[in-house]
C-alpha cells in the first residue's frame, strides 16, 4: 500500500508560486529581453523568427521554459524536451512577464488525488492517444513532426500542454476538458509510468502493429526451423 502510493509523493508537491509581485514582472522583462526577444520581439509580439507570445499566458511560458523547449537554438527545429535553461525562480519571473502582456491561461493547479483513474484512461483514449499513443510513448504525426512521449513531463506540464496546445497540438481548454478531467488524465499518465509490463518485454511500448511484426518474425522464423527439421532426410 505504502509502496503503491510512494510514487505520488514527489508529484503532490507541485503547488506553484503565489501571485507574482511587480518586481518579478520587471525581472522577467529583463530576462525576456536578454534571452527571448531576438525571436519573439522586445514586446513579445513576435518576429519573422518566432511567433507572438502575447496571450500565451503564464502557462505557455512556464511550459516552454520548464520543459527546456525554449530557448531554442535553431528556430527551424521542432522544440524538444531538454534540461531547463533557467532556474524555477527565473521561470516564474519570465512567466509573470509573459502573463502581463495579455490575457492567457494561468499555470494550472493539478491535484492528482482528485483525479479518477478510470475516467482518465477514457479521456486519454478519446483525446490524446491518437497522437501520443495509447501507452503515452508518443509517435510520428507526419510532416517530420512528432508527438512527444509523456513520461517525463510533470503533472503541471501535462495540463499546461492541454491548455495552450504547444506547437502543432490542438488546444483543450477548461470548457472542453474540465479541471477535474485534466487531473484524471494526469493521474492516468502518472499511473502508466509505474504500471510495469505484465506481458514481459515492453519493446518500448511501440504499439500493437509494430509488436505484431516482432511476433511474426520470431514466430514464423521458429516455424520455418520446425518445417526444416521434419522435412530432413535421415
Amino acid at each position, binding site marked *: 500500500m505504502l509502496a503503491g502510493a510512494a510514487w505520488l509523493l514527489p508529484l503532490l508537491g507541485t503547488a506553484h508560486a503565489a501571485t507574482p509581485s511587480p518586481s518579478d514582472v520587471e525581472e522577467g522583462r529583463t530576462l525576456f529581453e536578454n534571452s527571448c526577444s531576438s525571436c519573439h520581439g522586445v514586446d513579445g509580439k513576435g518576429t519573422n523568427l518566432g511567433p507572438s507570445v502575447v496571450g500565451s499566458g503564464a502557462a505557455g511560458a512556464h511550459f516552454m521554459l520548464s520543459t527546456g523547449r525554449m530557448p531554442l537554438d535553431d528556430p527551424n527545429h521542432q522544440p524538444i524536451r531538454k534540461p531547463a535553461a533557467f532556474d524555477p525562480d527565473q521561470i516564474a519571473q519570465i512567466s509573470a512577464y509573459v502573463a502581463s502582456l495579455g490575457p492567457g491561461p494561468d499555470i494550472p493547479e493539478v491535484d492528482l488525488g482528485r483525479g479518477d483513474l478510470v475516467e482518465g484512461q*477514457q479521456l486519454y483514449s*478519446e*483525446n490524446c492517444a*491518437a*497522437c501520443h499513443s495509447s501507452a503515452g510513448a508518443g*509517435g510520428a*504525426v*507526419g*510532416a517530420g*513532426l512528432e*508527438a512527444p512521449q509523456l513520461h517525463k513531463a510533470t503533472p503541471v506540464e501535462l495540463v499546461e500542454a492541454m491548455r495552450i*496546445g504547444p*506547437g*502543432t*497540438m*490542438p*488546444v*483543450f*481548454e477548461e*470548457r*472542453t476538458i474540465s479541471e477535474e478531467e485534466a487531473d484524471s488524465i494526469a493521474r492516468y499518465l502518472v499511473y502508466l509510468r509505474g504500471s510495469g509490463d505484465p506481458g514481459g518485454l515492453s519493446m518500448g511500448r511501440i504499439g500493437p502493429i509494430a509488436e505484431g511484426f516482432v511476433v511474426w518474425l520470431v514466430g514464423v522464423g521458429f516455424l520455418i526451423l520446425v*518445417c526444416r527439421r*521434419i*522435412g*530432413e*532426410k*535421415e
Partner: protein
Amino acid sequence: MTVTEIEEKRAVRRIAVAFAISALAGLSLAAVYVSGGQVQAEGLLLFLALAGLGWGLAEWAAKLLPSGPEVGDYADPPRPGAEREVAEVVEEGWEESFGRRKFLFRMLGAAAGAMGLALVFPIRSLGPSPGTSLLRTAWRRGSRMVREDGQPVRAADLAVEGILTVFPEGQTDQADSQTVLIRLDPSVVRPVPGREDWTADGLIAYSKICTHAGCPVGLYRVATHDLFCPCHQSTFDVLNGAKPIAGPATRALPQLPIEVDDEGFVVAKGDFSEPVGPAFWNMPQ
C-alpha cells in the same frame, strides 16, 4: 520382416494418423463455423488441419520416397533393349512410390477434401447485401452533437484550435457517424463553394473516417490546419474542404453541415456531403 519394412510400416501408420487428424479437424472446423463459430476453436482446428496435412506430406517425402540418385554402369556401347530396361526401372519406382500407397492417397484425399469443404462455408459470410446502409449515416437534420459519453456539445465548449470527436445524440455506438468537430479562427475559414453556411462560429465538422482505408483521422496539426491519418499518412486540408494533400487518400473527407441552435448546442443540418469511409464499387460519384 526386415528392419526397413518395419520402419516403413510405422511411417505409413504415422502418415495415416496425421492425415486422419487433418480430416477430422477439417470436418470439425466446418461444423463449428456453421453452428455460429468460435474464433479460438476455429483457429485451433485450422491449425490441426494444416499441420496434419503438412506433417503427413513431409514424412511421406522423407521416409517413403526413394532417396538419393541411383548410380549404375551403362554398357558402352549400349546393349540392345537398354532403353526398355530403364523404362521398366522408372515404372517400378513409380509403382513402389505411389501405386502401393492407395490407402495413403485416400487419406490424403480425405484430409484435403475436409479442409476444402470447411473453406466453402465462409462464402456464406459475404452476404447479406449492405443495401443502402453504406450511403447514409445516423446524422439527420437537427441531430444534436454529443461526445462519446453522451454529453451534448455547446458551441462555447471548444476553443479556437480545439478538436472534439462527436456523434449524433443517442447514436454513440454508430461508428460510421463519428465526426471531428474543429474550431477555427473564423477569419481563416474558406468554405468550399456551395457550403458557405455549413460552418458556424468557426466550427467545422468532417467525417473522422479516412476515405482511404477507413482508419480514424484523429491527428489534428493546428499549425498547418491538417488532419492526419496515422495508418497511411493521408493528410487532409481542413481549411479547404478537407481535400487530400498528401498520402494515398484520393477523396476529401465528407463534410457535415452544422449550425448552433437557440440553446447554444451544435446541431447537424443534415447528413454528410458524401458517403463516408473508403470507396466501394457502386459508390455514387
